[in-house]
């Protein structure tokens, strides 16, 4: 995949304190405004804590229902490598 380095880089970025609230609010607005966003997925940290191992990478959540990152039991705090990814309608159709 092109620009694979960016996936890794993005996961390694330190998360702002309000990462979950702000990102999920953004997706909530996107869905409300009828953009081409269908929901939110979580790309788990490959080297993550025990809590992250239980995440389903294939699940598509409504922003209201998505787990908050970092997960409550995450040992990495703001350096948690799990990230939200928008899921677009065109991705759902192609599946």
């Amino acid at each position, binding site marked *: 995949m*092109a*620009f*694979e*380095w*960016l*996936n890794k*880089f*993005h996961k390694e*970025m*330190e998360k702002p304190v309000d990462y979950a609230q702000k990102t999920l*609010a*953004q*997706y909530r*607005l*996107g869905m409300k*405004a*009828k*953009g*081409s*966003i269908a929901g939110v997925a979580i*790309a788990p940290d490959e080297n993550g804590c025990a809590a992250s191992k239980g995440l389903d990478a294939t699940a598509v959540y409504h922003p209201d229902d998505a787990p908050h990152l970092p997960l409550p039991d995450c040992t990495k705090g703001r350096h948690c490598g799990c*990230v939200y*990814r*928008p899921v*677009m309608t*065109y*991705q759902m159709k192609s599946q």
Partner: protein
Amino acid sequence: MPGVLARIPLFQAYRRFGWPKMLPINITLSPSPKCNSRCLTCNIWMKRENELTLAEWDKTLASLGTAPYWFTISGGEPLMFPGIVELAKLAYKHCQPGIINIPTNGILHSGPERVRAILESCPNSQLIINLSLDGVGEKHDFIRGVVGNFEKFEERLEQYLALRQEFPNFTVGIHSVISVFSVGHLDELIAYADQSGADQFITEIAEPRVELDTVGLPITPSPEEYAAAIDRLIAYVNGKRYKGVARITEAFRVEYYKLVKRILDEQDQVIACYAGWASAQIYADGTVWPCCVRADNLGNLRDHNYDFKEIWFGEKIKEVRRSIAAKECHCPLANASYTNMLMDVPTVSRVGVKVIKPDTIEVR
């Protein structure tokens, strides 16, 4: 422009030895992420930020002095930002840039009125308005997520072309994003742009960016698809005859297209990236980034008394510069790439030869 050329060896030394300390010549200002487009290739419009006020922009731009030559005022949709005219005036007052570049989706009726006000206020800067076009007719509306957008694009293009008659410092361009959604109808876009009357037709490949929240999305065409598209774009540029400054800009454009092809193919920077040395971005909330692809938080202007220099010559940026110099990233971001090409001696040499002898040397 001679001042910019004189600074090239200084930037080369700065990147290599950390001295002399230089402020960027190319700065992107993103006053707001708000946008009235709903593009398939961009999610920035969903973001909301605690945006810098004009008073905060005033202090920030004052701290830059006359270092920046080229400003891009980006978004979101920049012409939706209520203070767009004042922001351009502040940039002009403090920095006296050679170029102010504003991309726009052409949806707003008030766009030309605001652009006129900027033109009247910034007579010694070249103002470039690039209208976004990702397809002809309904294809454009589909990709941009707004019914009737193409019709508005055409209205706006006509208005900007009329405005061009009044202002010699005004350039009107068409900008297309080559994505998986548009790569199939590139020929149609080229043909449309060719007869449009616009001064330039520029394209950029759709790429994932932290700023746009598109990391991981399948929007980038395959290297094979893009290579085929780029060959057609190069043939288009080479098939035309340009005069004056356009000969230089179009020679750089061909270089850019070939550079992108190599970046995709080799998954490498190919030429040294000067983001973090010669180019930078200031995001809506005051965060300074080296570029919008990585969007490393180099520091927030609000925490540094709006003094850009404190961040640019601070400690935090050092690790980011190390990472960029170590080629831990690569991307075809057009804004940074044009600065990078200007700093690359082989590229500039090829452009020079192409400009002097356009028919004898093929730009590679």
